[in-house]
Structure formats: structure tokens, C-alpha cells
């Protein structure tokens, strides 16, 4: 499974989006698509589990989780850290 597929799977399961996480554009604002801050915490926990990473304190911002592209960048940054 590619990284993007994993991210989309996590969003499908935990993002509670009003749209299909499998086909959403990678720059679409996830919060504007129905992801609550509550859901974003679950997304983050699931991402940490899926990629075996731990987001640093400075990554714990709304902006890190606002789109698939932002999440991918965040995951990559944490994997390299």
C-alpha cells in the first residue's frame, strides 16, 4: 500500500468526512470537508500507528492535518526525523 493509500484509509476510517476520502483532491481542506478537531485527533493517532511515527509538538497544529498533501509532508518529515 502506498503512503497516500494509507493516509486515505485512515481518513476513511477516522476522518468522518462528508465526502469520500478515497477520491478527495489532495489539497482540499479536510476541516472544511467535515473533519472535526475531535476526528483529527483520531486521524493523528491512527497515522502514528500506521507509520510507526510520533508527531512532534510543533507538528500538532491544525495546518499539519488540513489536507492530504499536508499530512503526507508531515508524515515524511517525522519519518526522516
Amino acid at each position, binding site marked *: 500500500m502506498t503512503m497516500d493509500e494509507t493516509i486515505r484509509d485512515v481518513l476513511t476510517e477516522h476522518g468522518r468526512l462528508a465526502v469520500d476520502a478515497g477520491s478527495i483532491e489532495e489539497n482540499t481542506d479536510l476541516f*472544511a470537508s467535515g473533519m472535526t478537531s475531535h476526528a483529527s*485527533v483520531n486521524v493523528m*493517532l491512527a497515522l502514528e500507528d500506521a507509520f510507526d511515527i510520533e508527531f512532534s509538538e510543533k507538528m500538532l497544529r491544525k495546518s499539519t492535518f488540513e489536507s492530504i498533501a499536508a499530512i503526507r509532508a508531515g508524515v515524511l518529515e517525522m519519518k526522516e526525523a
Partner: protein
Amino acid sequence: MTSITEEAPVVSDSSDVSRRMARIADEISGPAADEVDQQGRFPSETISALRAEGLLSALIPRSLGGMGASYSELSQGLVSMGRQCASSAMVVAMHHIQVASLVRHGRNDLLRNYMVELVDRQYLLASATTEVGTGGDVGSSVCAVDVADGTFRLEKQAPVISYGRFADGILATARRSADSPENDQVLALCRPPELELEQVGEWNALGFRGTCSPGFILRASGDAAAILDDPYSDVSTQTMLPVAHILWSSLWLGIASAAIDRARRFVQAEARKRPGMTPAAALRLADATALYQQFADLLRCSVARFEDIQDDPDRLSALGFAIAMNSLKVSASTLVVDVVRQSMVICGLASYRMDTPYSLGRHLRDSIGASLMVNNDRIMGNNAQMLLVHRGE
């Protein structure tokens, strides 16, 4: 809606905002406090006095004609006001929370012009964030703004709008559009004459009776530029939540201060009767004083914490800051009840009676509201969720 009757206020500098609020609290809010409480009426004399001195625009920057007061000055002023009349102080606090949201998140010309007008006319602003059908979650809305041809339209069933009937403008949350999910919210400034409020029910509560907070059906329309520039989630995280928790805690500290003042006077009166014998209640006063100090210092530090980062959206959005501001609300609303209760034990029946200089019935009733207005359990639930991922300081 009130009509604006006062002449243009004399605008002065902010250095004495807290002192002037304290004077109005002592001379005007205090003497009316029992009547405001008993009759559950709006503390109009306090608001008129603040208007006459231009203090409703204390937070508006000088560049727009306001006083540019700091949050610590306002906080101190609210402590003084809360000491005299918690209902008055709550109205004033809620007004300034709305003003802070406008100042910090309203950048377009219409909103800036409105702030200039607010300075001139000393408008009182109210808030409509809760809604029937959301289970008390202010982070989601059922209603939506309907924007067409540069005009917005909104209808909202609000279970509570504090002093709605007396406000000159109301900031209401709503979904961004009819197609938006419930958490994609905006904040719209609703103004007369395109603002209509239909009252639903009465406000007959245990405390904060003067805030006059019944439900309303709000119907409004207006220029779409009256919708704040930033999404409500940002306004809430960076301004409404921290400012509300700081300003509410300030007036709750005022309630605690009034209670411990009575306790101290009671113990000292006892001591004067029998010099050489420390009254039994003095030990409890020492205990209550330690509690009060915790409360006062917590507030002072929390205001400084906010002021240090108030212009840094990134740090304001950090989990650690949100957790700290939530913790402030929960701690302060718990401490106020503790200090009032301890003070009642110290003063005994004199505080339980409604007609002595040591009466604390109103203070106790008001203090209990603190943990219920945005329920502490909901706030702790939010912190619990954030702590699943927070890495500590």
C-alpha cells in the same frame, strides 16, 4: 434593542481603564447589585456608566479611536466589577469577548468601520453561539448563512442569548453555507435594523440573574462583509476561548474576593471582641486565603501567558495553550465555589442570612454558575481528547 442615547464619550487613554471600571463598580454596580439579582433585571446603570466613559470600546485599538487597553487592565477591571455585581461583570465580560473577536479577526473595511462606529456610539455586543440541536457543542452549527449577491441571510434558534434584548449587535455562529458540514462555521455580525429577535421563554435562574439570558429565534440579514474574515474555528481557538476563560475567571475572582473580604472582616470583628484570643475561624480564614491566592495568581499568570503570545496565531493554536486555557476555566470555576463556601463556614449563619453585612447567598448562587456555563465536564472532555496526543511542555 436599546437606542443609543448618550453623547459621544470622552476618549481617554487606557492607563486608567481598570481604575475607572473599579470606580463604576463601587459607585454604581454595587449599590444596584441586590436589586438586579432579586428582580433579575438588566444592570442598565452599569452599562450606561461604562458607555458614558467610553469604556465599551476599551479593547479597540487607538488607530480606530478606541483605548487600546490590554487584557490585563480589563481583567483587573472585571475583578473589581465581579466583586460588586457578578451579573454586571458577566455582561461586560461577554461584550468584550465579542469586541476582541472583532478586533482580532475583522479586517475588512465594513468591520473596521463598524469598530470606529462602536467607539463613537458605544454599542453593546452580545453573542449567539449555542444552538438548539447541537447538544451544547458550540463547535458545530445547524443553521447556515445564505449568501447571495453580496448579502447574507440567517435564521438561528438560540437557546440562550445573554442580554440579547439589550444588545446593539450580536455575533452569531453559523455554517458557512447550506452545503457546509456542521463544523465549518463562520461568525456573522448581525445588526439592527436587519436583526430581529423573537424571545422564547424566560430567564429565571439561580444566579447571574441580571444577565437576562432567555432563548431567541434570531433572524438577520446584511452585507456579506459583516461575516468575519477568519473561520470561526480560528476565532474560537485564538481569541474567543482564551479571552472568555480569562475574562470570566476575572469576574469569578471578584466574587471570591468579595466573599473572602466578608470572612476577613468577620474574623477581625471577632478578634476585636476578645483581644489575645485568636478566633477559631481564623485558621479557616488562613486556609481560605491560601486558596484565594492560588486563584489570583493562576489568573495573573494565565493573562500573562495569553498576552505573551497574543499576536502569534501559531502559538495560540498549539495544543498546550488550549489545554492551559481550558484548565484555567475549570480551576477558576471550582476555586470560586470553594472560596465562597469556606467564607460561609467562617461567617456562619451571618452569611446564610440574607440581611447581614456578611450575607453570601448571592455570591454562592452566582459562583455555582461558573462551572455550568460551558460545562466543566465538556471542557475536561476536550482536554482529555487533546491529551491523547499532547507531548507535554
